[in-house]
């Protein structure tokens, strides 16, 4: 079994999107949510290959719980555990938190591969990665957004960068050229009519995370 733990639903959908491109076929919905649909840990099991699972932790605080209570008892069945989390404002601290959770779980460390968004080197998060892949000067809604962002940060103190980034990603999705029910970031990869084309995985910015997901599911 190969398991990839992620922090939120947008991460789940990005991983599913990478997997779809990796397989070069329409298999975005192959990962089906299981268990209780509540603000808890949710497993997405691949219906064609049930040895592949994505676990949405719905917040990084659940990492230790998932490792200790869910994965440790079934360790023998698991070949690889991927952890996809945000580097946030302190790369080393975030890395250490993941290390601590792994250590507490007592799962064989050799089974783990970890990746801190945006690119396993720099500070930031998933939104940082998504925005870095866009050519803002050629996207009208993002040009408008820069002025809006300046106004917001001038007028309101202490707005978290992450909140602005999330807002910018939403603006990009919502006002893209061919709007198709894309009110939430999670539907921005593939929606009812297929690939939205909003995110280009062949861009250099995506290379490290695509490589990471391939390593988890193909190793």
């Amino acid at each position, binding site marked *: 079994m190969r398991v990839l733990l992620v922090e939120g639903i947008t991460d789940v959908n990005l991983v599913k999107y990478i997997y779809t491109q990796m397989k070069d076929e329409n298999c975005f919905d192959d990962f089906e*949510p*299981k*268990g*209780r649909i*509540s603000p*808890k*840990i*949710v*497993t*997405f*099991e691949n219906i064609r290959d*049930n040895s592949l*699972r994505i*676990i949405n932790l719905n917040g990084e605080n659940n990492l230790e*719980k*998932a490792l*200790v*209570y*869910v994965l*440790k*008892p*079934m360790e*023998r*069945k698991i070949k690889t555990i991927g952890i996809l989390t945000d580097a946030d404002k302190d790369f080393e601290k975030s890395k250490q938190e993941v290390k601590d959770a792994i250590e507490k779980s007592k799962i064989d460390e050799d089974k783990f591969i970890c990746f801190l968004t945006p690119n396993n080197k720099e500070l930031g998060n998933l939104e940082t990665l998504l925005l870095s892949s866009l050519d803002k000067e050629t996207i009208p809604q993002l040009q408008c957004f820069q002025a809006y962002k300046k106004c917001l940060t001038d007028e309101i103190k202490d707005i978290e960068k992450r909140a602005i980034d999330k807002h910018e990603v939403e603006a990009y999705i919502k006002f893209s050229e061919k709007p198709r029910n894309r009110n939430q970031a999670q539907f921005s990869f593939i929606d009812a009519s297929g690939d939205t084309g909003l995110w280009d995985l062949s861009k250099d910015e995506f290379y490290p995370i695509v490589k990471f997901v391939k390593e988890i599911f193909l190793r």
Partner: protein
Amino acid sequence: MIKNLEINGYKGLIDFKLDDLNQINIISGKNNVGKTALLEAISLTQYHKIIEFRQELTRIFESRDLRLADINMFLQTMDIVLSINGKKRTIKYKNGDDLSDEEAQQVDGRYLSIEDFLVLSSIENFSIIPFFEVLEGKYLKKNKKKFIDSSKPTNIDLTNLYSYIQDLGKQDRFLEYLQIIDKNITRIEPQVRGKEQSFLRITLKNPKQSLISSELGEGTNRYIEILSVLLKNSNGIVLIDEIENGIHYTKLYDIWKAIIEIVQKENIQLFVTTHDLESIEALNRASEDMQFDKISSITLERDDDNIIYPVIRKYSSFTATVDSGMDIR
């Protein structure tokens, strides 16, 4: 209560160990990973008298539909060493030549020409049963007192089981629990018709009807069987194979709540197998709502060499895993 056990060899279970057993133990796993065999191995060691052991063997032969030649083979491969909380009980096939001096002394003069034996031993004593006596067990009444197998109970089974409830004077509680699955049931009583025919007669409220229990759904009969065996076995062990058989998934939550209440009140240790996710989820919800955490989950798996091994989860791990949607069947 059995806290841990070891099985050296019984069917597919070889060098098999279980720790952290609890009051309710839910055993899951794919087909042919030894779920039923695990229950059988436990039940075989739960005898007080040799006749009970033979009755249990008879029940196993019948439920596995074994013919004479199969039974011989079955017995010849038997090597159960069940260590219950450090105290060993063994059931082992031995050829006459392999008997220890002490064992040979016991059979000496009685079974000189017999070659095949089952040797049952515990800390206190040992007993030697020649094969022909085991095979004669085929004609014994099968023991359904603590092991509920996956087959549909007959009218006679249910009437016999219900008679224990009458012996214990637990009819009112029985009816109360039975109404969990069908509030329309107002009365249950055994009836004998002729020499061979006995059954449970069930009275329904609306429309007012009197039916034989077998006229009701399979789930109700299964539940009657479960209730009877549980209420009969206070301070004992009960084993249920494929608990979900015949029971509609919407009733599983209420049934688990009833079971949790009974095992607590009657001080019963329960071993249950299932391959039904809904049954596992229902137990998880019922235990959470009743704040009952004396549950262990055992998932049987096969490793790369096809050896069966258990994945044991204590309650916190069981509930986190089920909630997360990670399949533990």
